[in-house]
């Protein structure tokens, strides 16, 4: 156990899961509680970890002004990167045209359509906590961030009298990282079970049914990672090898569980060790989960045009762009929930009078698509913390 790294064990877990899902799908489906327990344990980390890191980080960074600057830089960076992801998705789907020549079955669409996308005003309201304990109980990441931001700023301005609370937060952050480490011992099992359940209930057939769409999606994601994120790494002069080492574990966990929340604690810990200051990780990472969903943005642009193509509806570039902007707005603030992107997509398509049958088709392969977009989301967020740290002039020296 000691000899192999956690990453190696996660790979072994994934391979075992795939084998089990293929060989004994019935048994594999029974493993759902195992992956659920793992995911629940990870979710239990998030609220205390965010509180500890953010309050200690912001109170320690000393100035509210600095945090405002970081927030502004983050938003600028998020918008640039997600726009690039969106353009890439549109280009890819218009080049390969995976939806053409498909016949859509007119059944089973209702299930996917029933949920409406939330309105902008409601999303905005939902960002602000009315009780932080309630936010923590429900795992509302953005609300926790807003509360901790204000709370940490208050600590910073009170100064000496806030010492006990800030020390508590520092200590809590440290403890929760250790807690994460313990929970991660379960990762190979949890991840293997998650994969086994997916394969066991969907089968490998899902991979071939819509091969062209899946291939387009995966190639586009790879292109995005290599060329866009790669370029960002070059420009910001981030040490590539160490960055890859830092993100491989969170990336794998996100990929196999299709839940970006599952990867959050480990991603935060690894980025801190990578050398990103605590207050930047604590702020940029969770807000990125709402505003910097690179993989999801790419997927949404690709999928919506795919549906139009499959339905035989011709969209002009102008129409496509307007639809994209709508998707970008509606998709904020719903990260962390597996399959949430699909609900957003269904609602948006409906408002553009596009047929829902396409969504049913997408639902069938969503598990496979979700893995790709979630892992790219996590990758993009890890990078965002490093970029902002560089932008703020930090050297990214490794922490013990």
């Amino acid at each position: 156990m000691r000899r192999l790294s956690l990453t190696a064990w996660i790979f072994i877990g994934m391979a075992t899961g795939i084998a089990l899902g293929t060989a004994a799908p019935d048994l594999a489906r029974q493993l759902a509680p195992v992956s659920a327990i793992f995911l629940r344990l990870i979710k239990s980390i998030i609220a205390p970890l965010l509180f500890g890191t953010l309050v200690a980080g912001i109170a320690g960074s000393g100035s509210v002004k600095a945090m405002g600057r970081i927030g502004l830089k983050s938003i600028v960076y998020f918008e640039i990167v997600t726009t690039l992801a969106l353009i890439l998705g549109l280009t890819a789907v218009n080049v390969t045209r995976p939806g053409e020549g498909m016949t859509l079955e007119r059944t089973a669409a209702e299930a996917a359509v029933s949920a409406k996308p939330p309105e902008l005003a409601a999303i905005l309201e939902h960002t602000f906590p009315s009780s932080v304990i309630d936010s923590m109980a429900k795992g509302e990441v953005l609300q926790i961030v807003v509360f901790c931001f204000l709370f940490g700023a208050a600590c910073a301005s009170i100064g000496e009298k806030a010492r006990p609370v800030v020390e508590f937060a520092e200590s809590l952050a440290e403890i929760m990282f250790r807690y994460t480490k313990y929970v991660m011992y379960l990762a190979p099992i949890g991840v293997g079970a998650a994969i086994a359940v997916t394969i066991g209930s969907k089968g490998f057939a899902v991979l071939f049914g819509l091969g062209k769409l899946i291939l387009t999606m995966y190639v586009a994601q790879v292109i995005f990672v290599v060329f866009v994120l790669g370029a960002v790494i070059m420009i910001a002069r981030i040490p590539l090898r160490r960055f890859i080492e830092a993100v491989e574990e969170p990336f794998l966990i996100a990929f196999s569980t299709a839940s970006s929340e599952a990867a959050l604690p480990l991603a935060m810990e690894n980025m801190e060790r990578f050398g990103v200051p605590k207050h930047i990780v604590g702020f940029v990472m969770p807000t990125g989960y709402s505003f910097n969903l690179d993989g999801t943005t790419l997927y949404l642009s690709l999928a919506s045009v795919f549906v139009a193509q499959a339905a035989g509806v011709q969209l002009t570039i102008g129409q496509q762009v307007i639809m994209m902007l709508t998707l970008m707005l509606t998709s904020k603030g719903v990260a962390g929930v597996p399959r949430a992107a699909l609900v957003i997509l269904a609602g948006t398509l409906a408002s553009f009078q596009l047929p829902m049958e396409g969504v049913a088709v997408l639902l069938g392969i969503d598990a496979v698509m979700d893995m790709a977009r979630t892992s790219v989301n996590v990758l993009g967020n890890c990078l965002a913390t490093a970029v902002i740290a560089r932008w703020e002039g930090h050297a990214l020296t490794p922490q013990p």
Partner: protein
Amino acid sequence: MTLTSAIFLAMAAGTALGLVAPGFALQLSPLTAIFLRLVQSIIAPLILGGLITGIATAGSGKAIGRIGLKSLVYFQIVTVVVLLLALAAGNLFRPGDGLHMRGAAAGVETPQITWQAMLEQSVPASVFDAMAQGQMLQLVVFAALFGMACVGVGERAQPVVRFFAAVNDLMFRYTHYVMYVAPLGIGAAMATTIARGGWSVFSNFGRLIAAEYSALAALLLLFYLPLMLAARIPVLPFLAAIREPFAIAFATTASGAALPVAFEKMEAFGVPRPVLNLVMPLGFCFNTAGSSLHILLSCLFLAQAVDFHFDAANQWAMFAVLLVMTKGVAALPRTTLVVIIGILNAWGVPLDALPVLLGVDAVLDMFRTSVNLIGNCLAPALIARIEGVSFVPALSPTPETPAQTR
């Protein structure tokens, strides 16, 4: 007048009131509810503070592991004993024979909780959610991981550990204050129970009640008592110490309601806080002797009531399954029922007699909860003895420490 005597006086008064003026007595239920709400507000911070402090300050993981392991082994022994008693009682009294209830009742409510869900619900998705909903097992899991993480972090975990140690102390004092309301709450609970006329079921299902009460009594007299004598735990001081928690458990049938004051009393009895903080919450989740007994006996009763014959082999199979399945029944509300239904479904026994069981349950529940409580007070004392603590009666001549007599 001491608090304990006030509580017993209130129980007597409540019983009298329920008999004399049932209409008025029924109006008193808010008093019970208020008391129970106050007590329940103690549990989450008390458990969290206690377990985290207990694990974090025990110094070495070894000591915790040893105490935890000993507790779990002991709980498993108790489970074997109670299940044997239940088997014996079910076959001696045959409480369901002659009822012939097959087809008697349709539309039995089946809880929507599956085993998978129960398993998943044993770990927390958010500790704040677990606290808000009073999910004990989730709290225990979180606190155990968190406490171990504190040990792992070491010196830099001190601010958090000190915080939880303070919470632990504070909640003991908080409990003390809440207990001043106990006589009112308990008296009201007795009055409403009596006024609801729960006692008429005695005549109808006397054999079931007799079976369960005798089995529970056998557990107390033939297992717990000899165990105490063998471990040299002073019996009378122990009984004195558990009087108050016993009264609360009996009157309110709320497992958990008696927990805070049981903590307080067992500490006064001489069980060291580290042992108490670990064993008590574990026992609350895994040492529900009364409930385990009730589960097996109910399964036998329900089968007998629909003339379903369990041969010896199947009874032992059920016994084996329940050795595991009775663990963690305190994790979710109504889980005893889930386990009973799960077992009967597994053996294909019709559930026709279930409504009857639910009707008698109020009466059975009082004794069952009290026995759970006694077992949970005994366990920390016993583990403390095994760990080498001796209870010198002179140290706690009466359960009333000076602070409690006012």
